[in-house]
């Protein structure tokens, strides 16, 4: 071999020094630890003629080390190896604090590798071992060999440099992380925050502050606060005061002009101090009170206004840790809603539930209940938590009674509109509960739990439609109040209780049938539902029949109760036009039967109403005086001055079905009026003269 080509020791030392210098120079240029470690490893392998190598770094949360850089190693041989700091080479390398030779064959971590020789050096963060660099099998032209003493020194030197660089990068990463964290916190908080420097220039504005003052952050940063807030002297004054006093200055509920938008805010200005306690600016925190208003309004969906206000005034009322206390729990549940909803389109199910809940929740809040949950069609309401009064149980019972009473009115409206009525059962119990904010960090709700809650739910299940069932404990709390009447029921067995539970039904007055309410509801239903194209059979005609029925009945000396029934029939006599004009009397009678039954109208009188409706069918066939009256009222206009106007509307309506000529119409009227007779004395005496004139006029026209 030609000697001129031999690699001499001097060249190798030169290469080592250059490599070390490269590492030193380049280490500060890496921004990421992973890139740094890979570069160190590659250079170490190259300069020390190692066939392969790896860098292990300690996991920040444990004593385990992970491979963070690897070069030319058999990764499969190391798969599953747990590099535990407490085992193997870690102790030794930590003690020596410089590179040492490894016995690969006996090493608990590396014995599975095909390597023979190893050299390991510690990466230190001050005194702590944070990582190791491991090189395997020094190469030579004769094969592999152990690393030499000079290699140990070289790797120690590299590891020392690497440790410094690693710590620098970690420090920068930590600073960046802390800055990002602070920025994220500042940007995410709802309180508006901005800071000023000693010159009074705004140097930081978070998102909330920009939103509150209604200005872009770019337009604010770098400008003096007096310029930014020139239209808000009060803010400038507060900052100025803070700068002078070096103390926190606060002002509540002030109105500020935010770029044309007036906002109510709480402001707090504090001096910003450095670590020498010297002022370096001010920090201004702004709380947008419109958000508080939104919060209040959201909160009020769940608890009454009174409780919201109390909670906002007194934070201590909210015991976040949970507490055992006495509370009254009300459960209500719609009976048969599942089967009922199966017959309804989905939008009607939602609409029905929303209408129902709106009504019920209004009552719950009226009596200071806290709406704990809406579970499908069931409601769970708490009284006495978070705040308790001596009226909690009474309020719960009053709620239950009013819920049932309001539901009657609610159902009357539904029935009138041909919708199925809703019935509910209610159960109330009082007892010890655990109350508090229960849930996960993501979602936490104030609620109560415990046996007493379960029993309230079971009482609700035991209650039949329209019933309010309360436990004996509830009854004992309310029985002294004469408002409440309870009926003792047979004790019931409930799951989880060995002894049967003493229960009572709370009695309440179910309102009797109210004619005026019924007239109003029917009229409203007719207005909304009668087909608009029916010009004659309109609400005006029906009102006229009601009015004439009453007038004739009074002349006929009919008593008040019968007049009330007569008017009810009059309101309902043409309701069938909504569904089936051709047989509207029969359809109206069917509707009247269902509606009046559901409205607690005396059952024995329903036939009287349907009889009157059916009697109006042409040719009229009254069987009693009331039926005669409604028949005469229905055709009262035949003998009135306004005959022409009414007949014109009727013709218009009839022409919807077929074309009718003027002549044909005259013939129809002639025929009808000729045959028609009034049944009552009143109508005969008051309407016949005019009716004769009308008929004569028609006959005259026919002759023409």
């Amino acid at each position, binding site marked *: 071999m030609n000697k001129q*080509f031999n*690699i001499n020791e001097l060249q190798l030392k030169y290469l080592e020094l250059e490599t070390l210098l*490269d590492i030193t120079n380049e280490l500060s240029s890496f921004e990421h630890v992973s890139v740094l470690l890979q570069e160190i490893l590659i250079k170490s392998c*190259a300069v020390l*003629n190692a066939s392969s190598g790896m860098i292990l770094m300690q996991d920040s949360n444990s004593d385990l080390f992970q491979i963070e850089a690897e*070069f030319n190693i058999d990764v499969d041989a190391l798969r599953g190896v747990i590099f535990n700091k407490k085992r193997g080479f870690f102790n030794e390398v930590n003690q020596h604090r410089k590179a040492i030779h490894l016995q690969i064959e006996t090493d608990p971590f590396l014995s599975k590798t095909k390597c023979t020789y190893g050299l390991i050096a510690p990466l230190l963060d001050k005194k702590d071992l944070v990582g190791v660099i491991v090189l395997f099998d020094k*190469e*030579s*032209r004769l*094969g592999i060999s152990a690393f030499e003493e000079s290699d140990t020194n070289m790797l120690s030197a590299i590891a020392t440099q690497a440790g410094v660089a690693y710590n620098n990068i970690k420090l920068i990463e930590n600073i960046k992380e802390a800055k990002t964290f602070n920025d994220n916190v500042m940007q995410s908080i709802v309180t508006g925050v901005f800071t000023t420097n000693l010159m009074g220039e705004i140097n930081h504005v978070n998102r909330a502050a920009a939103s509150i003052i209604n200005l872009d952050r770019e337009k604010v940063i770098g400008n003096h606060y007096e310029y930014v807030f020139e239209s808000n002297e009060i803010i400038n004054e507060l900052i100025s005061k803070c700068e002078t006093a070096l103390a926190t200055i606060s002002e509540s509920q002030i109105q500020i002009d935010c770029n044309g938008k007036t906002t109510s805010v709480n402001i707090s200005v504090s001096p910003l101090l450095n670590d020498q306690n010297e002022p370096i600016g001010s920090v201004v925190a702004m709380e947008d009170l419109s958000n508080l208003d939104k919060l209040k309004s959201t909160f009020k969906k769940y608890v009454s206004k009174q409780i919201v206000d109390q909670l906002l005034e007194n934070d201590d009322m909210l015991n976040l840790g949970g507490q055992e206390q006495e509370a009254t729990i009300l459960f209500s549940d719609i009976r048969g809603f599942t089967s009922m909803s199966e017959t309804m389109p989905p939008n009607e199910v939602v609409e029905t539930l929303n209408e129902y809940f709106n009504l019920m929740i209004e009552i719950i809040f009226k009596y200071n209940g806290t709406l704990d949950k809406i579970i499908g069609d069931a409601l769970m309401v708490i009284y006495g938590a978070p705040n308790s009064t001596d009226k909690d149980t009474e309020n719960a019972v009053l709620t239950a009674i009013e819920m049932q009473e309001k539901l009657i009115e609610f159902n009357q409206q539904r029935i009138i509109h041909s919708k199925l009525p809703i019935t509910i059962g209610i159960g109330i119990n009082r007892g010890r509960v655990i109350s508090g904010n229960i849930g996960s960090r993501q979602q936490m709700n104030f609620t109560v739990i415990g046996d007493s809650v379960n029993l309230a739910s079971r009482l609700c299940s035991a209650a039949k439609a329209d019933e309010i069932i309360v436990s004996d404990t509830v009854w004992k709390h309310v029985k002294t109040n004469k408002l409440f009447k309870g009926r003792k029921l047979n004790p019931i067995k409930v799951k989880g209780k060995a002894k049967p539970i003493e229960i009572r039904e709370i009695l309440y007055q179910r309102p009797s049938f109210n004619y005026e309410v019924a007239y109003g509801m029917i009229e409203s239903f007719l207005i909304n539902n009668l087909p608009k194209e029916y010009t004659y059979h309109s609400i005006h005609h029906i009102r006229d029949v009601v009015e004439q029925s009453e007038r004739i009945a009074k002349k006929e000396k009919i008593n008040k109760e019968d007049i009330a029934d007569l008017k009810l029939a009059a309101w309902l006599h043409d309701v069938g036009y909504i569904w089936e004009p051709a047989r509207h009397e029969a359809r109206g009678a069917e509707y009247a039967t269902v509606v009046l039954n559901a409205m607690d109208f005396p059952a024995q009188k329903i036939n009287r109403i349907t009889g009157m409706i059916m009697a109006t069918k042409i040719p009229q066939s009254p069987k009693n005086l009331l039926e005669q009256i409604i028949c005469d009222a229905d055709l009262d206009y035949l003998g009135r001055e306004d005959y022409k106007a009414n007949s014109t509307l009727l013709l218009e309506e009839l022409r919807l079905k077929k074309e009718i000529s003027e002549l044909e119409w005259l013939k129809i009227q002639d025929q009808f009026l000729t045959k028609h007779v009034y049944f009552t004395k009143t109508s005969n005496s008051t309407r016949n003269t005019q009716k004769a004139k009308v008929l004569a006029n028609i006959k005259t026209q026919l002759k023409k």
Partner: protein
Amino acid sequence: MSGFIKSTKEENQIVIIETDGYLNNEGGEAISTICYEKMNEGKNKFLINMAGTKVVNSIGVSILIEIIEKLQEVDGKIGYYNLAPIVSKTFNIMGLTKYSTVFATEEEAVSGL
């Protein structure tokens, strides 16, 4: 072909070897094996495309020197292109560039060898 030798081709009577990975003892042996085979076939010009080689150690360099010595006996040449800066620096320090040529691109290498 070893994992280190990615490809070999011939162009203008020049054998072009593309490498991938650590130019150490093993990598150097892989190159020398091909070179010696081709020299037996009468080839005496070699180019090594080192785009895939980012690391080299002194053993790898010493093998390249051995190849250069053999080539000198047959009036042959070897050159390299697509060198990473650290590889180029190592070649310089180890004195390799005194006896062989480093090119920037394949075109330059093929025409300049």
